[in-house]
């Protein structure tokens, strides 16, 4: 099993460690609900060392990325970031990724899911054979630490030289953190304001500690993967292996906004056929339930006794004070307000289709 550079710190903080995508990661340091509330109300720090990080450069880097992923890499300005999908030839989702154009416009940076890193690198390297491009796995040469929550900017500003007020949402920049050159982006997976810092290997502990020295008095806390899942789910963000995987396509997942049709990405032809057919007959929806039972991944969804879908993710939402779920359901039942049931051991519990995202911060 892989370990991030911060593993011993998590253990010393009393974290419960679990295997996640081949990495030994902290699932929680205290209570999951409390950690989620800390991020919504103050700020939390996350070790994201497990996520895949890849540099893409060379004369045909842009053309290569146009082939690899669904968004329009040519339209990304220097220092900006786009969400995108990698599809297979069947138009089904291999991964969801972030594509960064370097601030100096000298290449790209791609962040991929930990559990898909090996497969994605294989896909990238195969496609790269047709282009004058270098694909460089820097998962090990860079750490990744995120700060998320409304106090993120004021805490991070104490550590870095860049004026963070000028870094836009889904933008990134070169700066010095703790006196060392590195990059950071205004991105995250929680629905809150925040930054992700790409830390040269060997400095992770120093940067992690510097964040606490700067932010402890503001209530900064370490946050595990459990609360991270709760937060991303409240914010309506998909998780690979739940809302999206090799059996789903971006249209039914409501991610068509990340697909631009002006370039020839892998899976385009198949996806066009699905779009022309008016979809696949199912749609990803949000569900809320007043039931004490929480819908869980795989539970069937029923409507008037007929099975019409299944649950992708379920969570107790501390922010909404209800149980939330995402589910694929028959498209004619996807209208917010529709009453459905989720089945727990064949017993129906009521739930209601709810517009996604469940939570949106005030800006």
């Amino acid at each position, binding site marked *: 099993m892989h370990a991030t550079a911060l593993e011993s710190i998590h253990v010393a903080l009393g974290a419960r460690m679990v295997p996640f995508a081949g990495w030994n990661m902290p699932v929680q340091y205290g*209570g*999951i609900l409390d950690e989620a509330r800390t991020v919504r109300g103050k700020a939390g720090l996350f070790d994201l060392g497990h996520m895949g990080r890849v540099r893409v450069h060379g004369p045909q880097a842009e053309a290569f990325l146009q082939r690899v992923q669904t968004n329009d890499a040519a339209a990304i300005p220097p220092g900006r970031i786009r969400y995108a999908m990698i599809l297979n030839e069947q138009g089904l989702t291999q991964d969801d990724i972030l594509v960064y154009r370097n601030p100096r416009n000298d290449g790209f940076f791609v962040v991929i899911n930990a559990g898909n890193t090996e497969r994605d690198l294989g896909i990238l390297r195969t496609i790269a054979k047709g282009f004058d491009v270098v694909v460089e796995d820097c998962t090990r040469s860079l750490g990744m630490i995120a700060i998320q929550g409304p106090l993120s900017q004021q805490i991070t500003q104490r550590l870095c030289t860049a004026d963070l007020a000028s870094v836009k949402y889904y933008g990134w920049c070169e700066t010095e953190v703790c006196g060392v050159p590195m990059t950071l982006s205004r991105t995250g997976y929680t629905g809150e304001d925040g930054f992700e810092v790409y830390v040269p290997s060997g400095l992770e502990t120093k940067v992690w500690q510097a964040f606490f020295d700067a932010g402890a008095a503001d209530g900064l806390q370490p946050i595990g993967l459990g609360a991270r*899942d709760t937060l991303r789910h409240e914010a309506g963000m998909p998780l690979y292996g739940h809302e999206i995987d090799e059996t789903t396509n971006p249209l039914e997942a409501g991610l068509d906004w990340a697909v631009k049709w002006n370039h020839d990405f892998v899976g385009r032809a198949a996806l066009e056929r699905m779009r022309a057919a008016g979809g696949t007959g199912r749609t990803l929806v949000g569900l809320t339930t007043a039931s*004490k039972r*929480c819908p869980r991944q795989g539970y069937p969804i029923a409507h008037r006794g007929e099975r019409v879908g299944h649950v992708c993710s379920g969570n*107790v939402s501390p922010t909404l004070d209800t149980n939330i779920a995402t589910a694929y359901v028959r498209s004619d039942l996807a209208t917010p307000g529709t009453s459905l049931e989720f089945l727990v051991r064949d017993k129906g519990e009521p739930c209601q289709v709810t517009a996604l995202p469940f939570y949106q911060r005030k800006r």
Partner: protein
Amino acid sequence: MRPTDCKFLKSHEWCRIENGIATIGISDHAVSHLSDLVFLDLPAKGASVTVGESFGEIESVKAVSSLYAPVSGEVVDVNSKLPDNLEWLAQEPFGKAWMIKVRVTTKSPDLIDTAAYDAHCKAEG
């Protein structure tokens, strides 16, 4: 310190048998590992439970876990206030957070004493 008048399953249920009636609950170790409990489903009085089979479910923020019966027999009492007071499980897992009482017909052959259970928890981490 766990009470020494209880026997345990490695799946973290405990039982205390007095006059042929087993009081059943889950251990402090189970409660601390589940964390953020949100739901508890217990059988009704009069139901029968069977060694090795699930007699209920406990749900935390992230997972649902089955509760396994350490004995077989008829449920003669249920702690019906517990599902609405799940914090009792962290406060007094061997006391007021008992779950059901069962008139014992058979005991699980896998029950271990407190010292062996302590060692099991230590090994499990």
